């Protein structure tokens, strides 16, 4: 017996010399953390020499940013694997391991090009897309049918249907994210792009370029009109994702703009609108420049540049595992998080759990990134302030666009 114990002790010591522990940050929205623990258990079984510690983070992206800032600025080697918001790679690139040479190792040709592009900074790949997000339109199937409306294809159709139905039903027409925070930038980009406008292009400020100005103005004016005309409640200027979802899920709105996560919640058995909800692409702006547009969201996995070479190798293995098709399908089925790999959408298990995927696959394929810049947060702040001042009646669309153009130019130039 004694001999066995000694042998075991020696074996563990020898093994621990070759084994390695890495730390990974993770979110805990919905079921995502539980699912991650299950996935990591499988990974550690397959890779007995690697131990993975999970470090859960706050839900808000802004709070996560604050957390990372303190980790990265202090140069600590932990955590090794960083879960990164799609807007961060440019800012955090100096702290991330360059993965350009591992493009094939991660099989990135099979991923949505947009998600890979959003992780490429100055031609270097700094993170691998893990799951994606795109803005989509939720609508009440039952109410559209009741009042004889088709699913809206343009913002004007949405406006008309929302105004009519909301008046007759005594509920809100269209809820979205209008509070002054990152989510507003996402919504603004969708309105602006769908109207054929543009705020930044190739790192240049084009808000007031003659080519885009009229469409930008039309988009912001339309957003404001939604509130002024009562199609959207004045309260949207204080709503984030969850405020909008609660109202829609409670049956108090005809349309909602939100991310895919709201689907399973809206259709949960205890939801008052379960089975009455449809999902589609966000409407087009007015012709001739109008098109469908969805803002690209999502999370990526990068590696801390201060990790040791052995930790980097182990981290790459973990990232490859978590972003593999099999694990993306698992995540889509059990956590409802949208895959970044095209193949994962063709898997019958994915489709069974999320039957709307085939209809909106195009949305994810064509989701448009927010401006890519190392000063993204400053750019986003200016966009939020300019539009929020219009929405809360503190400025006119014209004045807001002028000051936005001026402020962005002083940032960029």
């Amino acid at each position, binding site marked *: 017996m004694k001999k066995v114990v000694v042998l075991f002790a020696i074996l563990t010591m020898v093994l621990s010399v070759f084994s390695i522990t890495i730390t990974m940050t993770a979110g805990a929205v919905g079921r995502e953390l539980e699912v991650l623990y299950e996935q990591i258990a499988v990974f550690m079984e397959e890779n007995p020499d690697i131990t993975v510690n999970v470090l859960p983070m706050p839900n808000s992206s802004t709070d996560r940013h604050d957390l990372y800032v303190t980790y990265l600025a202090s140069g600590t080697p932990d955590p090794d694997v960083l879960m990164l918001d799609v807007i961060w790679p440019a800012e*955090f690139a100096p702290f991330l391991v360059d993965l350009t040479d591992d493009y094939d190792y991660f099989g990135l040709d099979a991923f949505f090009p947009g998600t890979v592009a959003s992780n490429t900074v100055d031609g270097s790949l700094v993170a691998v897309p893990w799951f994606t997000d795109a803005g989509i339109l939720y609508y009440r199937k039952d109410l559209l049918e009741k009042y004889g409306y088709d699913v809206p294809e343009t913002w004007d159709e949405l406006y008309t249907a929302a105004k009519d139905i909301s008046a007759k039903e005594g509920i809100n027409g269209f809820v979205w994210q209008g509070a*002054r925070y990152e989510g507003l930038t996402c919504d603004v980009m969708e309105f602006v792009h769908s109207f054929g406008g543009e705020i930044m292009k190739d790192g240049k400020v084009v808000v007031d370029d003659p080519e885009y100005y009229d469409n930008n103005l039309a988009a912001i004016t339309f957003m404001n009109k939604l509130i002024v005309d009562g199609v959207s409640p004045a309260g949207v*200027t204080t709503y984030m994702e969850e405020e909008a979802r609660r109202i829609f899920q409670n049956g108090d709105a005809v349309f909602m703009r939100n991310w895919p996560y709201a689907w399973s919640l809206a259709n949960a058995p205890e939801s008052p609108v379960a089975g009455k909800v449809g999902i589609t692409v966000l409407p087009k702006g007015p012709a001739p420049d109008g098109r469908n547009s969805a803002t690209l969201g999502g999370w990526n996995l990068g590696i801390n540049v201060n990790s040791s070479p052995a930790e980097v190798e182990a981290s790459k293995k973990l990232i490859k595992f978590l972003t593999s098709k099999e694990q993306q399908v698992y995540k889509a089925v059990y956590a409802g998080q949208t895959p970044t790999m095209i193949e994962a959408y063709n898997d019958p298990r994915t489709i069974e759990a999320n039957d709307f995927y085939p209809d909106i696959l195009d949305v994810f394929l064509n989701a448009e990134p927010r401006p890519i810049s190392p*000063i993204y947060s400053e750019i986003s702040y200016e966009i939020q302030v300019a539009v929020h001042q219009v929405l809360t009646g503190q400025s006119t669309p014209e004045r807001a666009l002028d000051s936005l153009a001026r402020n962005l130019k002083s940032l960029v130039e």
Partner: protein
Amino acid sequence: MKVKGTYKRSDIWLAFWLIIPTLIAIGITAFYPLGQTIYDSFFKWSLKPGFEREFLGFQNYINLFQNPRFLSSLWNTIYFTFFSVLIEFLLGLGTALILNADFKLRGLVRAAVLIPWAIPTAVSSQMWKWMYNDQYGVISLMLYNLGILEEGTPILGTPGMAMSAIIAVDVWKTTPFVALLLLAGLQIIPNELYEAARIDGASIWKQFTSITLPVLRPTIGVTLIFRTLDALRVFDIVYIMTQGAVATETLAVYNRSLLMDNIFSPRGLFGYGSALSVVIFLIIGIFTLIYMRSLNIKLD
């Protein structure tokens, strides 16, 4: 009582050694970061790797005072501080006077009054944010029913109203704290003073102005300093309820944005943010001095 200079030499050395850890701790936790912040504020600097420090002198401060965002957050902070401290003080004094009176279940009431103060600010801010919601918020409902608000008005999304709503939450949260401090001050006033005053025929108001207020003055001073300093660096309530939108951004909220959101900015905003930190520090320092002078408070 010993007179200065009569301590034994060994006693003095012992005292010296005993105080050293405290001095070191204060140095590390207070003076070093303060000095570092002041130093950083003279540079264009970012924590982005490879960023070259560039000496700017007072340029960050000059830029700061020309920045409309800084000026409006300075104004918002002063506005918030003035009204929240004023209302809290008056309500707190009233509460303290009531709690100082003799009545049944006084202990229970005293404990109950403290509840808002015991709830973590992050929690109560979120709770109030929901109560202010235009669709399901109970406060909004009450105000609609009273005819004060139009239906569908977002309290936290309306310029002017949002700041008042935030001040209301701060008053709700902090009045108990003010009342508690003032109550402690009231407790030390001997009852004989009032009895003597009553015998001399002094009115309640006369008793209040001639006995209560003068004796309470040091306590009032400490209370006002505590509250003003807290209010000048208000962060959590504002950050949770509005993120600083619709003219509610305070200096601390702006500072977070500079030091956290833009810490790696190639524009070198870390020095700029440090300058703002120093300005906040100076403002708070000046207010403290004014109070201590005008209320004649001594720290020793």
